[in-house]
């Protein structure tokens, strides 16, 4: 018996060593380590990774953002300014300069305050994709820079969003507003145009398909390639990768055309919940069945041990 336990110890040791080597250790070596920053946005990472000639501009930009964030915003005054935003951010908006302007219905709840300020001040800088607009191309939301210029106006609009657009979204709403204009979700029958309706006639279905292709072509022209469908992304990337990537896509994929969307922690959790619902739908069932199956095996093992003992008792 003691000898068996000793042998078991040796086998268990080498098995665990093997597991450690091919899983935790290998993964720690394979991926570069990126530090998360808790879904707050103050430009530290942007400045650190910026090229020499951009460092100064970025430092100044984020210093300005900090100043505006310190201002007292007036939500009532902000509503008037928000009227301008509604010109594009409205229901049924079409593609503008590459993407469909997102709904802002829950913007106050899912996006970080500093990020919203930065975005209104300079969308390309805020989303950390200014490298894409070095030449003549303009950010689709670039015109905001001439529309809302006063720091107080920016503070007011953000105060308005935080006060009036801050109802808690469903997981799907959070994803739709933050991600779904570029990323399809085919396992939820959603495209860049939103949920795919059911059609009575093939002709209508094909017509819709053409609209989707046209929208995807526009996104592709803007982004350089069609952003991936995210149906299985929750299992294709680690939890840590997803968090740090959403916080700052450049940190994990330098030079990517994906903009930072500025989700706060609550907003990201909602998005992750949706990705998990679609990409790993068996999770609740797994958690229910797991203890029963393992409990059964433990009972099985105890009975097997008793059977074995009764047969082996007289052998030695």
């Amino acid at each position, binding site marked *: 018996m003691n*000898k*068996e336990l000793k*042998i*078991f110890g040796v*086998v268990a040791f*080498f*098995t665990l*060593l*093997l*597991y450690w*080597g*091919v*899983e935790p*250790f*290998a993964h720690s*070596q*394979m991926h570069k380590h990126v530090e998360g920053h808790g879904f707050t946005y103050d430009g530290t990472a942007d400045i650190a990774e910026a090229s020499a000639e951009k460092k100064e501009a970025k430092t100044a930009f984020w210093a300005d953002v900090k100043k505006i964030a310190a201002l007292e915003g007036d939500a009532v005054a902000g509503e008037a300014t928000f009227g301008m935003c509604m010109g594009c951010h409205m229901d049924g908006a079409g593609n503008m300069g590459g993407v469909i302007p997102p709904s802002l219905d829950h913007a106050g709840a899912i996006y970080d305050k500093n990020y919203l300020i930065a975005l209104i001040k300079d969308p390309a800088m805020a989303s950390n994709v200014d490298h894409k607009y070095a030449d003549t191309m303009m950010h689709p939301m670039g015109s905001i820079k001439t529309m809302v210029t006063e720091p107080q106006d920016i503070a007011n609009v953000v105060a308005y969003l935080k006060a009036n657009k801050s109802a808690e979204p469903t997981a799907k709403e959070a994803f739709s507003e933050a991600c779904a204009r570029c990323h399809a979700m*085919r*396992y939820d029958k959603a495209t860049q145009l939103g949920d795919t309706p059911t059609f009575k006639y093939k002709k209508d279905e094909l017509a819709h398909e053409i609209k989707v292709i046209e929208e995807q072509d526009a996104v592709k022209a803007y982004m350089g390639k069609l952003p*991936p469908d995210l*149906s*299985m*992304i929750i*299992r*294709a*990337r*680690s939890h840590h990768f997803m968090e740090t990537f959403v916080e700052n896509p450049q940190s994990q994929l330098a030079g990517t055309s994906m903009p930072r969307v500025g989700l706060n922690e609550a907003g990201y959790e909602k998005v992750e919940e949706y990705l998990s619902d679609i990409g790993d*739908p*068996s999770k609740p*069932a*797994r*958690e229910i*069945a*797991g203890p029963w*199956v*393992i409990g059964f*095996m*433990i009972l*099985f*093992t*105890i009975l*097997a*041990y008793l*059977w*074995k003992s009764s*047969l*082996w008792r*007289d*052998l*030695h």
Partner: protein
Amino acid sequence: MAHFDENAKPFSAQWLDERLAISTVRKVLAFEYWIPKNINFLWAMGMVLAATFGILVVSGIFLLMYYQPGVDTAFDSVNYLIMTEVGYGWLWRHVHGVGASLVFLIIYIHMFTGIYYGSYKRGREMIWLSGMLLFVLFSAEAFSGYMLPWGQMSYWAGMVITNLFSGGSLEAYGLVEWIRGDYVPGQAFLTRFFMLHVFLLPLVIIGGIVFHFATLRLPHVNNQDGEDFDFEEAAELYKAGKVKESKVIPFQPVFLSKDVFVMGIYFILFFYLVFYNFDFAMDPVNFDPADGLKTPAHIYPEWYFLWSYEILRPFSKDLGLIAFGIAQVIFLALPFLDRSPNVAPASKRGLFHIWFWLMLIDVLVLTFMGKLPPTDATFAFIGLVSAVLFFVLWIALPFITKIEKKL
């Protein structure tokens, strides 16, 4: 003409016995199939393997009912249809994935047990050879199965492994195309590996398992001390009721009861992994759909092929391929390279004892290095040293066993 009792009830024991000799069969295969008493739980690995294979077959049958082997449908049939729409499809898939990984863990434990106790010599050569044949078959089965979800790792592993058949400087690309049925992995490739995985290879494996069992029957199972004793005599003692004095036990029910207990412990681990820790067996990269225009940053095989992959990597193209080829078959030669007459645990065999642990650790180190990016100079160097050591050990084996003292 045998005697048939006309009054025997159909399907009664007597009736069956007259037609199928079932009592003789049961004797030969179970109740009077003698196993040494002096064994430990490692002797149960064979039955653990058989059970795991059974679970792979059953879960595979359920998956096969919904899997669609098309380049446009395979990924979604696995990740959406089976995982979302099929009742308990996720369970069958995770059981199949974890089972495929664990079957190799147990194969390796089974193999190194055999090496440690010298269970490949003196009449047991065919056991070893048929077992290694099963290892090769399981490897082919694992590789072909890995193609089926048609994710990024399926596609690129398929690309890399089939490319090996170009033979380095031989540049036999015609052979590679013949294997793939296309210039790159595509529909023809997927369908033929599907056929191999669900039909031809399982069929051959079942034959292999039967053969492996058959090779055991005459030389009998080895024991913890490699002791050579008269099984007939020991069996007579047991049958006479002197079970304490006898060195053997019958397969059924005595040996089996221990097997079942060990299986119980194994299945606790198995289902823990199925429910709570399955990522190790289902690589995240393979949850990205296959894309021939996007090579993953690191392409690596599943953990059980890493050691031989690392033997391929550190050398130049042709040398690496030759080394890889030799590594695949060298274990088959073990009974002939071990020149010592001793059948004993490695701990009693002097230099061979050191050889055993060096080999085990070397294979582990090769496995670790096989998954790491080859761009790191330190890891590449460790990989090279371990690969060279692997061959040094095999070359040294006949010499150190030749000078081994007879016990």
